[in-house]
């Protein structure tokens, strides 16, 4: 298998999942590219993660407070799953349907929401939106439980149109009012209160008595619409196809301008979006089909490094290289520290700043977050006894000459590429340490630190910030 082929498959795994260690990559790369795509979009072909061990070693997961631990567990799943696209789609929908812990502080419904995204993430848009409308966490987040037939509340109706399906400029304030009226009565079962036994789960209930069943006009159609009718009409709109395809593009392919400018800023690659829209329309918004098309397209294969990694990708992807967190967290660390790491980089998982979600692309980077990203990645290679680092060391063989060190490490970390300037700076370090002997245990021990330092420098680069 040529290195170009390997690099392309590594790119696919970074985008459709959270990357891969060298041994994971070589195993998967035994299959052809199209076959890997089929495996990714059919996660059911692979066994789900067994959570018994992680729960045994992290008893705090049996309680529904300490929400960071549950968010951290999600990152643990991203690191270890054999169904990477399933976890990545859960993250995708979480980006779009951003719902935050800080309002409800109700962990069971927040976890259930992510589970829904995990289970239906690759299905069709109508199912996705219907499931969302019935999701108790979303319902509470956008106050639809306070949306009554005699006193409507517009929060859910507005954001459904503005942020979850069509985007600004494609509907009127009256459409918002009427959509809101159609969703009156869509609420959830009031769960038991927190004390004394902790939080309990909840589920969707439809309160007919609180529903406004009168005539409404929505996007030019008139009828006694209920919530499902609104979703039906939304799914027919070309604006919905464009908006959802654009979201998929910016998440999987290339950074677009920020979402709230989309009513004014056109897509960077209009041809790609149009081609995706065509698949959307032909398949009634089947996400699996759209992603099959995207991953097999030239515009995707040519999109290496055109996206800035979101903090979760950086955290999960870097940890995957170390082979840590497979079952047991590091000594003295709780799963919640995974959440903490992404949080200081600007992405508090399951706790986004607002329903708008996170600003992505270069907006992940500023003086503060760049500091955190670099320091986190550097710290992962502090310990030369991690399984991932030991694997890298063994693959380097008996000896690494100074003029090979940079190239070999870039290959084993990715493969990833860096620009000339970066390469020159990394080479200056390689020249300073000279040829490295790895032929004996003692030599390996002495020189391991120097190789770890090279990897630390690589994961500090500008290039490493890109997906």
């Amino acid at each position, binding site marked *: 298998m040529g290195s170009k082929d390997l690099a392309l498959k590594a790119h696919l795994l970074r985008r459709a999942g959270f990357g891969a260690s060298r041994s994971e990559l070589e195993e998967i790369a035994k299959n052809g590219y199209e076959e890997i795509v089929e495996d990714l979009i059919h996660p059911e072909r692979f066994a789900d993660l067994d959570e018994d061990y992680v729960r045994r070693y992290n008893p705090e997961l049996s309680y529904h407070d300490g929400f960071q631990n549950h968010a951290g567990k999600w990152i643990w799943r991203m690191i270890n799953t054999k169904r990477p696209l399933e976890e990545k789609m859960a993250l995708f929908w979480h980006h779009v349907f951003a719902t935050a812990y*800080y309002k409800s502080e109700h962990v069971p419904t927040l976890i259930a929401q992510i589970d829904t995204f995990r289970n239906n993430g690759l299905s069709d848009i109508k199912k996705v939106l219907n499931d969302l409308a019935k999701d108790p966490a979303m319902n509470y987040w*956008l*106050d639809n439980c*306070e949306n*009554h037939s005699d*006193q*409507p*509340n*517009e*929060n859910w109706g507005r954001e459904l149109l*503005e942020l979850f399906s069509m985007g*600004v400029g494609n509907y009127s304030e009256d459409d918002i009012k009427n959509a809101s009226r159609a969703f009156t009565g869509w609420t959830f079962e009031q769960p038991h209160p927190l004390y004394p036994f902790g939080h309990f789960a909840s589920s969707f209930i439809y309160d007919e008595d609180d529903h406004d069943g009168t005539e409404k006009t929505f996007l030019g159609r008139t009828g006694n619409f209920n919530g499902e009718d609104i979703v039906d009409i939304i799914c027919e709109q070309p604006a919905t196809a464009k908006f959802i395809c654009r979201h998929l593009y910016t998440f999987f392919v290339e*950074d677009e301008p920020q979402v*709230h*400018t989309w009513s*004014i*800023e056109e897509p960077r690659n209009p041809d790609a979006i149009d081609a995706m829209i065509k698949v959307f329309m032909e398949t009634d918004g089947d996400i699996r089909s759209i992603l099959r098309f995207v991953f097999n397209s030239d515009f995707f294969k040519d999109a290496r490094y055109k996206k*800035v990694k979101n903090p979760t990708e950086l955290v999960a992807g870097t940890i995957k290289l170390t082979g840590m967190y497979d079952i047991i967290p590091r000594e003295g660390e709780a799963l919640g520290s995974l959440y903490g790491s992404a*949080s*200081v980089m*600007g992405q508090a998982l399951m706790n986004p*700043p*607002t*329903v*708008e979600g996170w*600003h992505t*692309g*270069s*907006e*992940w*980077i*500023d*003086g*503060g*977050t*760049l*500091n*955190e990203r*670099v*320091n986190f990645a*550097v*710290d992962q290679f*502090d310990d030369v006894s991690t399984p991932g680092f030991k694997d890298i060391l063994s693959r380097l063989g008996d000896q690494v000459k100074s003029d090979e060190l940079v190239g070999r490490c870039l290959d084993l970390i990715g493969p990833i590429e860096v*620009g000339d*300037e*970066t390469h*020159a*700076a*990394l080479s*200056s*370090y390689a020249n300073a340490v000279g040829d490295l002997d790895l032929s004996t245990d003692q030599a390996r021990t002495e020189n391991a630190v120097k190789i770890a*330092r090279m990897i*630390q*420098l690589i994961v*500090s*680069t*500008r290039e490493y*910030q*890109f997906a």
Partner: protein
Amino acid sequence: MATTTKKDPVFVVVQLSGGNDFMNTVIPYTNPLYYDNRTFLNIPEEDVLPLDSTLGWHPEMGPFKELYDRGMVAIVQGIGYPDSNRSHFRGMDIWHTCTPDEVSTIGWLGNTIEQLDPTGENPLTGINFGVGLPKAMTKAGVPVTSVSNLDNYGLMSGITAEDQKDEALQIFKNMYGQAVGSGPVMDYLSRTGNDVLTGADIIKVAPERYESTVEYADSPIGKSLRDVARVHTADLGTRIFYTQQGGYDTHANQLPTQPGLFKDLARAVNDFFADLEEHDADDNVIMLIFSEFGRRIADNGSGTDHGSGGGAFLVGKPVDGGLYCEYPSLERDRWAKGEDLEHTIDYRGIYGTVLEQWLGLEAAPIVQGTFEQINPFKTN
């Protein structure tokens, strides 16, 4: 300590994120229309802390009222702009960029920082305390620092051996060196990396130097304002500080939610100015507290939906305290969009007031036009 040197004016911005319900902050408690429209969500007359015969404070604003009573708070009533946008993101964007009719990537404070430090010599000229930079502070090419943890700010902080850390930092500096046409994001990464290196070197003295008898409450806004105080009193040349307090989007449960926010905010602001006073560092500091919109006149039975025509506050020793502009009218024929408070002063005029009268800069290019200003500063 004698303060004979004229210190550069410093401007602190506190953003209340979510759309603060101004009508329940500074309350028209003797106006029957208030109670008519806020059938559920009103603050009873006997709970209001009177300001004058027609307006009063929310009961949890006590420590803030104390600053007002000392003449340090200018209440800017009815702040807003024509055809107020009801979307959080677009709404807040408009406050950050001063371009209601088009989307911009240039923040008004990004422009301001560029005027204050044209060569970008001091990356600490503008500091945001929080995670990520607000758009208000960003402008391509203008270095701005964002600090989430003042006590451990800097690159490669995990490498403990000093000589090895220095070696790694040197290589980092080379890698992030002059980027020549490697793309806008790569260039941005280069600049940002170098600014972090420079800023970290300077800012580390702030936590080391700081001493105070003021004990801030353990709230996020308290922590942020304490960090502002720590850096300001360290005299590092910072002219613009920015931070935010979230949670104001009270569509539901406004009665239990808003008081908690006010409690934290009022205490934090009071502690902050007490801290500055203790350090004799309050002569040259003013603070603007604002939100992206006010809220609907009528409540929805549990909270309020997005509206307009809110209010803002200018706080500080140099401020000539009192009521400014006009409280938005509660008369039905003067409602905006048939359901909102109409603004009475454009926010860009308040920005302009700060830019020209406090920072000594020309306002029109930064706020994209000329807008009515107020005169909220004491004349010596």
